[in-house]
């Protein structure tokens, strides 16, 4: 964790359903790689953080400093993946659902 880049990037996170108490009714998967985004979105932002046009302008306004109190853009998930979850419903029937946006593929300054 200590040698991760300062700039906005994807960080590793493995979510174990037992940690959040859902393992009783979730059959599979028991855990999955969810990842998360963290890091700075300071001016000037490198292309690697895929800033939106709005984020680029916001960081310039903040850097210039004429308008006080403007925060830097946020490092958030950009592209995300779905995850199939097999679980038991209230009637103990087996259900399969494909949930969108469950794990982070890329991060961006927005």
């Amino acid at each position, binding site marked *: 964790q200590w040698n991760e880049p300062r700039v906005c990037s994807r960080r590793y996170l493995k979510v174990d359903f037992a940690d959040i*108490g859902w393992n009783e009714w979730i059959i*599979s998967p028991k855990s999955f790689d969810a990842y998360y985004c963290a890091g700075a979105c300071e001016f000037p932002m490198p292309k690697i953080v895929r800033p939106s046009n709005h984020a680029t302008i916001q960081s310039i306004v903040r850097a210039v400093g004429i308008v006080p109190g403007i925060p830097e853009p946020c490092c958030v998930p950009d592209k995300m993946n779905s995850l199939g*979850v*097999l*679980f038991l419903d209230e009637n103990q029937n087996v*259900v*399969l659902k*494909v949930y*969108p946006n469950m794990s982070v593929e890329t991060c961006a300054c927005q």
Partner: protein
Amino acid sequence: SHTATAWPAPPSAADGLAEGKHPQRPSGDAAAALGPGAQDMVAVHMFRLYEKYSQRGARPGGGNTVRSFRARLEVVDQKASYFFNLTSMQDSEVILSATFHFYSEPWWPWAREALCKLSKNASCRLLPPGPLARHHLLFHSLSQNTASQGLLRGAITLAPPPRGLWQANDISPIVKAARRDGELLLSAQLTAGEKEPGVPRPSPHAPYILIYANDLAISEPNSVAVTLQRYDPFPAGDPEPLTAPNNSADPRVRRAAQASGPLQDNELPGLDEWPAPSHRPQHYHKHELWPSPFRALKPRPGRKDRRRKGQDLFMASSQVLNFDEKTMQKARRK
């Protein structure tokens, strides 16, 4: 009426037979993941759909949800009826298709031979081969707690499978019509032409229904918690978690300074020692009153100062926590 159509049925047990695999033993780590329920076919079927999606991204039935429904066997007028409770379907789930999976004895002699070998009892071979049973299934739908037999929704003729043991039949119109009328209890009554099939014993081969749906609410924010969170993380009656940013969640009892003598004003004793911040108006923020759980690093005083300071410190601390007279006398006596 609906005739049985070829439907992408799960690999039939007979295939398993042909390949020497035990028909009921799921492949891969299905058994491990499913636990004791691995013996019933519906769990194995669902796990295969899950593996297909996880490994190849193949969306089950083109949607994002598959619900399975196990049968509950009941005998009505000497006829076997399988009841399916479909009430766990959500309103936001649009039904794409529904299949009914039914297990019937094989009537090919070699398949029966293989079964007898599996069941390892010699008398099995002596039994005459099963009748060439042609099953009819009558589907009725009823709403919860109605006593009537319900509305006839459709019938299926099940020709005995030449090879496979499991058949999958399309019952989408039946399920869609029943749901449209709000009758989410479905019954499938087994009749077999001229000769009643008798009452089947409950077995892991019980029929089951799979409903393939597209959940329109799954892209809503927080949809995963709506379906997967079962208990409220803060059960009712629990005190609200302390929301002050630097409050520790430690349930320790807070000790307070005792006011020495009658209260002259509502200042806390000993507080006037705190230099009031010059740039801030004279009122106190809650988090300023409670020491932050993280101690700020202080420069280390010299050895002499430390000795003198120690006594001061003791005096200051004793000022904060002073005991009543009776405790003092007892301490002095001791």
